[in-house]
């Protein structure tokens, strides 16, 4: 290898070494950021699309569903409603509710493909009112939510 080739090879290795250093610094930065957010998780109150395991909103939902679970037979079709929330927020809350209650069939209360399927309805934080509450009978009030049973003709 001639002199120019050697310098070129050394330069490439030096750049690769710098890249490794950069990646190491990136990992430390991400780890630091994760630790900081982990330490602050008690105050984590993101919108439902940004919820994480172990944060207060998830803990609140878990408490609600734990209470509701005692009153629900396994494998029941359960609609989840979040009055006053946007459709997008509700979509994420429904997904979290389904994850936390995998033994039930959870779907959104406004889900058109599930119209008339719900045996029970969980209303998150606020009670249902108006037409949404028609043909529903309150059966319990778990922490932070309201549980209704559908009245079948």
């Amino acid at each position, binding site marked *: 290898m001639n002199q120019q080739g050697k310098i070129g090879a050394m330069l490439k290795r030096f750049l690769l070494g710098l890249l*490794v250093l950069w990646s190491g610094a990136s990992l430390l930065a991400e780890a630091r950021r994760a630790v900081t957010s982990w330490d602050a998780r008690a105050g984590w109150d993101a919108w439902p699309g940004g919820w994480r395991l172990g944060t207060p909103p998830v803990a609140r939902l878990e408490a609600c569903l734990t209470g509701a679970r005692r009153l629900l037979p396994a494998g029941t079709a359960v609609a989840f409603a979040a009055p006053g929330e946007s459709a997008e927020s509700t979509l994420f809350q429904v997904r979290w509710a389904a994850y936390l209650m995998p033994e039930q069939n959870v779907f959104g209360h406004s889900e058109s493909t599930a119209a008339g399927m719900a045996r029970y309805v969980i209303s998150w934080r606020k009670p249902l009112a108006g037409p949404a509450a028609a043909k529903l009978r309150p059966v319990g009030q778990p922490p932070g939510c309201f549980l209704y049973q559908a009245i079948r003709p």
Partner: protein
Amino acid sequence: MSLWALGAAAAFFVLLGLLGSRFAAWLASPADGALYRCVLYTITGIVILHLVLTVLDFAGVRWSVPVLAVAAAVIAGIAGIIGANRQGGSSPLPAVQTRPYAKQSSGPAWGDALAIFAVIVFAVFAVTGWITMPDFVYHWGFKGHRFYLTREVDYSFLGNRWNWAIHPEYPNLVPELFAVTALLARGFDMPAMMLEAAVLFALLVAACREGLRQGGADRFIQQAGTALVALSSAAFGIGYIMAGAADWHLALVFAAAVPPLLRPPDRTGDLQIGVIAAFAAGSKIEGVPLAALLVAVQIVRRVWAERRLTLKPAVTTGLLPAAVVLAWLARVTHHHLFQTLESGAFELARAREIFAGVGEALQNPAWHGLLPVMFLPLLLLFQRRTRAFAAVAILELVFYFYVYFTSPVGDYHYFVLSNFPRLGFQLVPACIVTALVVWFAPKSERPAGTLGGCPPAATDHELA
């Protein structure tokens, strides 16, 4: 957090590796190092498990530890008997030409230490649940928990019309792994599920290290490359909250495919690509075209090398992926699980929105500037040694963009932003490896169609 569950999750992967190792006589090339063999055996074990669970579902048998143990024992026994008969004849392994790098040690060094550090850091964050990917909650983990409770892939549940949001049409290997981990752990323990991502990460790093070794990179490049892949992947995994994501599977697929795609095509390479492709096809929906591309490229290489078309290599490469894909297609079609989001007309008018999204995604802070590496295959295509890998990677990229241009989503800018950084993650580690192999291997060690300086990592005797 349950230590029992974490232990069960770790033991599960050891058992999968042991099951896969029963096929060593067919799977391991003399060029393969011990770590890469572990990668191949684990992937093989996972594919076998997936096929066993699929057969049990077809037969209507509920999953249980005793049933799975019996199935694994039977398969291991059959593999042992056939393998013993095969070893009695001529060696199943082709002779390997040694290259000047053959005397190089591939023992652990500073880069490996950094890689282990990166894997441990990621694993610690993963098991806390703090970096759990939202998709684990929305569908991967949710389906895994559901399948654990029902002891089957619950197609009647997936077929509910309101379940469109959980991607009922996706292949089920990923939730199956969660479900079987839960079976062994006697409960769906979230940290145990998250440990899976750390295991896949470790396998990914091992595969990348082997790609560098088989590619003929010298010791410094092997160490630097291994460290670079591990540190950058861990940084992205933590920053983009990737624990529990199925993208680890496809990143592992690309990385594990590098060694057989760098070597001249042979029988062992056919089967290695076949197993890796089957793993891809079972893991994610974009893994299905990836599997087809891997199989097609390997068959073309074989035909090109031998100047004739023979059926055997095609069967060896394509049988396992075909079994996985056909079983999946049969169930998805039978239960009408395909979604309207999967089909649509090609709309060029979306280009501005899509490329604006790509431009923004390339600057994602969790990547720290490394994401453009995913486009390196466009350059690697001009190098003969990396052409096969580059062809697979480019065609998979084309598939991603085809989906962007055809899926009727609505907000394409957000659509691209929401998945491009992690789709890139599937490619980046393997792209780093192949780029280092090409740009750092000495010119005298770049003959086309050779092992490229790769030392034989084992003799036939060791494999017997």
